[in-house]
């Protein structure tokens, strides 16, 4: 068990599964509005970052590639957030 958890990919997989369950649950309870949107975007950000760092193995890659991919995640989340914020006005 301890050895299994030493592998960052295994830890990432567990967190990704749980995070997906949380997003699904927020949908089930009909979560809507600013707090729900921010929460779901944060979850997507954490998940995306785990895929980038532990699945794509960019944790040990040249900084430029980490910045490009994590930057994509921040850009996409920000654009979605702005669009939803406009819709709430």
């Amino acid at each position, binding site marked *: 068990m301890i050895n299994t958890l030493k*592998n960052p*990919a*295994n830890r*990432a*997989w567990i967190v*990704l*599964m749980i995070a*997906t*369950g949380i*997003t*699904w649950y*927020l*949908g*089930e309870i009909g979560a*809507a509005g600013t707090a*729900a*949107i921010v929460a*779901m*975007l944060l*979850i*997507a950000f954490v*998940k*995306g970052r785990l*895929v*980038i760092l*532990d*699945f*794509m*193995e*960019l944790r*040990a*890659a*040249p*900084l430029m*590639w980490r910045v*490009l*991919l994590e930057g*994509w*995640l921040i*850009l*996409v*989340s920000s*654009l*979605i957030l*702005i*669009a*939803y914020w*406009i*819709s709430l006005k």
Partner: protein
Amino acid sequence: MNTIALDPAEHHVKRLPGDLAIWFFILAEMVAFAVFFSSYAFARAKNVEMFNLYQQTLDRNLGALNTLLLITGSWFVVLAVQAAHRDDQKSISRNILFGFLCGGGFLTVKVIEYAAKFGAGISLSTNTFYMFYISLTFFHFMHVILGMVILAVLWKQSRDGAYGAHNAHGLESGAAYWHMVDLLWIVLFPLVYVMR
């Protein structure tokens, strides 16, 4: 920059897995999806009630199940790359195969979902929400298929002993593409199925 470690075998050397070209390709794909995702979000801002109404007709359970399938498929392919680094030949091809099967599961679930929607007479021209839902998910669907073609090639080559501790480049490149397919769905699922 790090100029001390010149030996590429040393672990602390900054290293991009796979070929540089695949990463430029991945970046181009991600930019295209960033445009689609923000187009959806801004189109929704102009039509909130309609998007909220029709979003409720989507099957969130199937969307979440597909997220789990892609994440698990991605995880298997990481295990395949790790197996290559320790020269565990059997484990490389077995994990690629499991990753491929997860992709097959995703496509099956998606076809069931599409069958229900198309069976109800929904098409690209039904309304703006469905136009986005169908085109975004179908564009992603095509990427899952391409990812599975890549995995099939990797599986065949791994069976021929093409990958190992000193030759994992091709495998890492294909794996990076497969993870991108997963990454895109991680944004697409909450955006189209859940956020309101």
